[in-house]
Each structure stands twice: as C-alpha cells, then as structure tokens.
C-alpha cells in the first residue's frame, strides 16, 4: 500500500486549482521510517507527502485546530478515519463543502515494529466512507467480529478483571493525551480535564484516573471508530482499546448492531433509542 505519488499529485493539483488552503498528510520523521502528520500550505511543499502502511495517525484529529478552522482543507483518510470524519460532519464540527477528502481503500497499517495493527485485522470498514476521490481497490464489506482480547478478558472472573484494570488505572498519569489525540474529542471544556472543576476529580490519583477513563470511554461509547489514536498516544501504553471495544460490543449486541460513524446523520447509539432495547436488566 503506497499512494505517495498519487497523493502528491492530488495535492499539487488541488493547490494549482486553488481549491484548498491547506493539505493534511504525512511526511517522514527523518529519523526512522515513522511518519509525522504535516500541514502543507504551499504547492512547493507537496513533495514532502508520503503515504504507506506507516501512515497510522488519524488525521481527522487536525480538523479541530485553528490551522484548519474555516479553511478549505485537503485530507487523507483511511476507512476508520472516514468514520470519525462522518461523525464530525454529523455533529456539525466541519463543513463538507470545505473539505476535499482523499479516501483510501486501506489494506491495514503497521505499528512501530512493523506488525499489522490489531484493529486493522478486525477492521469492518477498511474503505473510506466519505471521500471525494478514492485510492486503492475497494474491499468487500466484512462482518463485525468481537475483539479477541475482549473475549479473553470478559471470560475471566470478576476479581481477575478488577486486578487487571487496577493496574491500568494505577498506571494512568492523566496526561490526557488520549483525549487530545482523539478526533472525536473536540470539546472546549473536557469532562476529564482536571482543570474543569475539582468537582470532577482533579487530582492525578488512581481514583481520578478511573473516573476520567470511565467517563471518557462512555462519552465515546457508540462513537469510537477504533482508530487507536488514543492507544498510540498513551505514554503509559495503557490498553485503552479494551474499554472502547467492550462498549462497542455491548452496543453492537444490544442496540441493533450499531456501529459508529457508518451512516451520515447517525450520532451514535446514545442519541437514539428503540422500543426493542433490552429491558430485562431493569427491575
């Protein structure tokens, strides 16, 4: 999967035609084969752009900053990224007519060690859902599978799970990299920012981390598109996907096979309801 040339051409054309003010893509770090997201503002810089299976970071995240706000933006999105873009469109955070989206029919990306990322192996929608132009061969729609880690953990006993997650919350340093790297976390005031109010658990304690991660994952429940920006960002390397994938599974199984960001106009499972929703857990 290497679309470096195509993307450079597209970006160059867009600049030449004056269709965009900024193009968000990837470039090499210069230290190793890893890549840095880059905001190109001039046609002369498009030669920096690359795209291959190391183009991991979900660039939709950059649509929340002042550099792209109210500008015409060109953007590269993979399948998962496009779902988050879909949500941002639904939640009125970006305007479709200001975007030029280069969609990728994604073959999956790799982690720093060069192994295919786990979420890519489970990916349901590898092809960009929102796109003005598609690169690559489209895939057939795949079936949703329950994450293997989730299955393993869920089958353990209550105490084992508690012990596992205690370790997770203990290791959280509440740097909030997870929330900042998440394209769907665009709130000006975030419920897990310690500053918002001491009322919401201000200190970086285990208890505070528990509160922050729980609340945060519930705000993303039914919205998380499993791009794993958060997990890649976490300096403590916490298995944050477990929380999201668990919620995703609960929601998929109980709420009419809901998956986030697949349809435009769908805000996520918590912003709609059905008469058929499970009621047996309520007395």
């Amino acid at each position, binding site marked *: 999967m290497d679309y470096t040339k195509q993307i450079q051409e597209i970006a160059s054309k867009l600049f030449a035609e004056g269709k965009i003010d900024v193009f968000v893509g990837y470039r090499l770090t210069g230290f190793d084969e890893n890549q840095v997201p880059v905001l190109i503002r001039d046609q002369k810089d498009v030669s920096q752009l690359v795209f291959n299976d190391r183009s991991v970071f979900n660039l939709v995240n950059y649509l929340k900053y002042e550099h792209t706000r109210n500008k015409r933006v060109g953007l590269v999105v993979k399948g998962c990224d496009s779902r988050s873009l879909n949500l941002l469109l639904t939640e009125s955070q970006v305007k479709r007519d200001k975007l030029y989206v280069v969609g990728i029919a994604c073959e999956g990306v790799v982690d720093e060690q060069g192994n295919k990322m786990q979420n890519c192996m489970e990916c349901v929608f590898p092809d960009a859902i929102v796109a003005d132009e598609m690169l690559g061969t489209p895939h057939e729609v795949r079936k949703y599978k329950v994450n293997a880690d989730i299955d393993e953990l869920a089958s353990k006993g209550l105490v084992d799970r508690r012990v596992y997650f205690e370790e997770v919350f203990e290791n959280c340093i509440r740097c909030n990299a997870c929330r900042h790297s998440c394209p769907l976390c665009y709130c*000006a*005031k*975030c*419920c897990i920012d310690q500053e918002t109010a001491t*009322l919401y658990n201000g200190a970086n304690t285990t208890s505070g981390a528990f509160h922050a991660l729980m609340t945060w994952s519930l705000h993303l429940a039914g919205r998380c598109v499993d791009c794993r920006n958060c997990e890649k960002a976490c300096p403590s390397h916490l298995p944050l996907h477990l929380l999201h994938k668990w919620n995703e599974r609960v929601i998929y199984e109980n709420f009419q096979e809901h998956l986030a960001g697949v349809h435009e106009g769908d*805000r996520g499972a918590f912003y709609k309801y059905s008469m058929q929703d499970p009621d047996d857990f309520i007395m």
Partner: protein
Amino acid sequence: MARVGVFVCFCGANIADFVDVPKVVEEAKRIREVKFAIDYKYMCSDPGQQQIRDAITQYRLTSIVVAACSPRMHEKTFRKALSDAGMNPYLLEVANIREHSSWVHQKDKKAATEKASDLVRMAVAKSIANEQLHEISVPVTKRALVIGGGIAGIQAALDIADARIPVVLVEKSPSIGGKMAQLDETFPTLDCSQCILTPKMVDVASHPYIELIPYAEVLELEGFVGNYKAKIRKKASYVNFKTCTGCGTCWQKCPVKVPNEYNMGIDKRKAIYTPFPQAVPNKPVIDAAHCTMLTKGKCGICAKVCEKGSIDYKMQDEIIEREIGAVVVATGYDLWDPKPYEEYGVGRFKDIITSLEFERMVSANGPTNGVPVRPSDGKVPKNVVFIKCIGSRDEAKGIEYCSKICCMYTTKHTILLHHKVHDSHAYVFYMDIRAAGKGYEEFVKKAQVDTAATYLRGRVSKIYKKGDKLIVRGEDAQIGQVVEVVADLVVLATAVIPPKDNPDLARLLGVSYDKYGYMSEAHPKLRPVETAKAGIFLAGCTQAPKDIPDTVAQASACAAKVCGIFSGDTMKKDPMISTVNNEYCTGCQNCVKVCPYGAIVTEEVPMGHGSKEMRTVAKINEGVCQGCGSCVAVCRSMAISLAGFTDLQIINEIVSI
C-alpha cells in the same frame, strides 16, 4: 460563604415518633455552613413558617432547608414563605424525612434518625449550590390556528372566535364540513346532520374573527407556545374566489366526469366542482389532476362560460404565513379499507359496501335519492346484513382498538333501512353492543324493537355467492351454531383510523403520535386535550375515535385551553429549565436531537471577544423547555445545565451522604 438555615418538622407525631428530631437538629448544627437549626411541631403551619421568615432576616441566611414531608407536598408552601421574607423562593431545599424515613423505618428509630440526618446533610449541600431563579414570562401572539374544518375544527374555531380571539382555520378540501357533512342523520336523536351542521359552517364563513383558508395545508410550524409561526400552502383553485359568485354554470357545462368523493364514488362530479351543494365557501375549484385543460391543454369551456371571468388556469399555489400563539389540531379520521377480509369476497362481490357508502345511499341528497340499492344490479335490497367490527378489535387483519362509533351508527342504519325500505329485514352480526352514552342504550333497544332486526352475536366467517344472492355464513354464538343468511346487500362497519398523513403532520408540529397514527395527548386522563408540546391541542378523532358529542366537547375544551393561554399578554413559566454556556458549547447539537420538545435551536455567536469568525452553538428556548434534563446528560462538554438540578447540586448531594 453560604449561611444555611435548617428547619426540622415534627409533623405532630408523624416524624417525631420514629425519628429523634432534636438529634437531627444537633447533627445539622455540626455542618460548617449551617448557621441556624431548629425544630418545630408543624413547620407548615403559620407559626412554623413565621420561624423561617424570622430566621432569614435575623441570621442573614442564604439558603433554607426544611426537613419535613415530601417536597411534592409542601415545597410550594415553603417557597411562598421564603418569598414573603424577601428571599428568592428557589433557595429552598426540602429534605423528605417523613415519606422517606419516619414512615418507612418505623421499627428502627436509630437508623431512621441517621437517615434523616443524612437527608438533611444532603439537602444542605445541595442548597449551597442553589441559585436565585426567577419565573420566566413569555410574550404571546393572540391568534389561534385550527387545522381541519370538520365539526371539531368548526366548533373550536367558533368558540375561540367568540372570545374575540382571531382564528385561522385551515381546511384541506375545498369546503369545510368534514365527515359530518356526509352523514344523513345522527344518533341517538336522528337529527338531520346537515340541519345542525350547515348553520355552524355559515357562522364560520361570516365570523369577523375567523379567517377561513380552504383548500390549503400547513407546511411548517416553528416557534413555541405563544410564538408560533405557521406556513400554510393554499392550493391553486384556478378560480378567483373574489369575483366568483358561485352561480354554477361552469360545473354544469364541464364535460369531465370524476368519481365523486363526497358520495364515496357512487356517482360522478365534474372536474370543476363544489364538493356538495351546501359547501362553504360555495365556490368551485378545478381538480387539476382531471381537468383536461390543465392536463392536456384542451377544453377551456368553464372559462368561456364564466361571465365573471373568474377562471384562471395559470393560478399557482400560494404560501401564506401567519403568526399564531396556539394550535388546535382537528384532522378527523379515515375509514379502514376492508380488503384484507378476503374470505368475505371484498372486492369481488359488488354488493358488499361500507357503512359510509350506505350512509350516502340513504341520505336524502345522496346519489340514489335516499334509497339503498344493490351496486350490482340496481335493485332495492330486501335482506341486508350488517357486519360490525370490520378491522376493529381485530389484531390479525386490522387494528386492536374498538372504533367506538360503529355500534351506534349500525343501529342507526337498521332504522334508516327500515324507514326507506319498509319490507326489508336487517341482520346484524356483532361481537358486543357498546352503547355507552346518553340515550344510547335506549336508542339501541328501541331500534331493535321497531325494526325487528335480527341480531346475531358472532363473527362472519365467509361470504359466498349463490346465484345473485350473497350467502353470509357466521356463528351465532348464542345458540352455538353456524348460521347462513341469504343477503341482497352486505354492509361492513369498517374501523375508524387516523388520516394517513397524521404522522407527517404530527412530526411537522412536533407532537408525538401512537402506533396507529393518532396524535398523543399529554396525559390520558388528566390532560386529554393538551399535547406534550405546549400550546398545541387536540380535538376530535385526530386523538382517538369519538362520536359527535364527544368531539364537540373536546373542541370546546380546546377553545377553553387556548383562551387560557391568551388570557394575559405574557405567560408565566417555571424557571427550572436548561441553559447553555456558549463558551463551552461545541455546537454538536446532540441536545437538539434528544430534546423531546424541540426546545433547542442553534444560533451563531462570535468565536471569541470581538472576533468576526462565527460558530454555531445551541440555544434553549425558554418558552418551550420543560426541564427534563435530557440535554444535560447528553452534553459531553458540560455546556448545558439545568437550573435546580445542576451537576454541582447533585454531586454535592452524593458526596455529603
């Protein structure tokens, strides 16, 4: 620093017998913010309230906690006491130590006392975060919109207009009158329907406070109670009503014949027509789907014969906007199509008709001049079988509910048949005879004697043809046997259903509707006229099947409610509603999505101080918000807060137990 006063009530022995009240006071005094605490025998009594009033001034209290009975009982009383002492009434919190402690833990005084202390501490913590709130007043536009010009709409419009409030009455068809205008006589008095209805129709047309907009439909309704704006589309009639005199030459000369809806398609009308002779307004309209001038560009006879030159083939639909304060929905009902009753041969046998077709036949101004005939051969029937509950009370084929009016009008039909065809005999298959209503049971009893109709309790299982007769086979449950009746004509009492476009209209108005399509009232018993959306009311069959007296009563009730809203220049509203903090609002509009009242809209605000860039934020409409808090819980950025139940208040309660 907050200064809280705590007032613990004995409630006679109700609380004091099971809770150690002095101990509760003592515990309350230990709380940092509590500057005054006292107990009293009856806090709600005037001396009790006086203690509160006195303490407020004496101790400069900033909020008050009363530990007594349920807030659902005396919250208003104590709020008034605060008001009287010059304190904002919403600085009160009530700790429910009677219903939630003394009455339910009568065997354990220690635990009940501990719990009461906890409840007081929670109330104190909450009250610290209480804010001063002020009743909201909303200006009102004193004009009502009535949708539907049947008897319900007519009655509501007249009653409102008689109170000198302007009314806009919108009717879908070219004339008002609705289903009632199609009826011959009405039960249980056998009044002539036309005789009692047409004077009211004329009143509507001539009333100075009623603006009648026929042949029109509501397109949009935005705003909130007292401040709605309605967009109405007036369909092109192709006839200039201002100059038309209603002389009738045009429709006499028109060559195009169309099945007549008013007569259930039994006869024909013209492509330019008035629905029926007594129509109001009595001006014709051109049926654009059938007029050959409009469809093919050939003909033009009506324009030629019209002396006034009122025909205008180029007329376009017109959009009318009206500002209004309240809406009465009176869209009436439709009849269920009995096609699923295949075992009856519906659709195959011409001599099976519906009740409304029968009604038109026996009507004096009907297509057969008041004599029922068999559609197959035009003969007058002798044996007529009436089958009730066609579609009603039938989960398998139709709907589950009872249509309420069929028992009575079928009885009426047996009488009308008896009057028109003296040697006829009526057979009625029924499940139950539901004749609850003034004079109804007597009416049925008398009809049974007078007409000597045969009443058979049971369902019809099959109708088949033998020669030119229909054989109706059913069970007579009372003798437990299958019976077969040879019939000339079969009349089906089809179910009442809501108009097909009721759900669309309900969505447009922002009113909820049930699974059948009837619009939902706010409360089935105590608020049967209101909808959950403030300022929108329901009259007649748009809410549920009803007979004429009930419909008229509900229409008048709507009028009373509308007049209530318009009784002042502004409306007062509870201030416990949501507010948006623009600074934090991300404009994601989740709140807009979940708000059951459509109370949240969006507005554009500058990005920052003095910034020219704009961004979208949510805005709560004070007039519409009912304070449920759904929006607060879905607001991820915590930009919305609900007065009286803020996050801070609730968390304060949680952490102070």
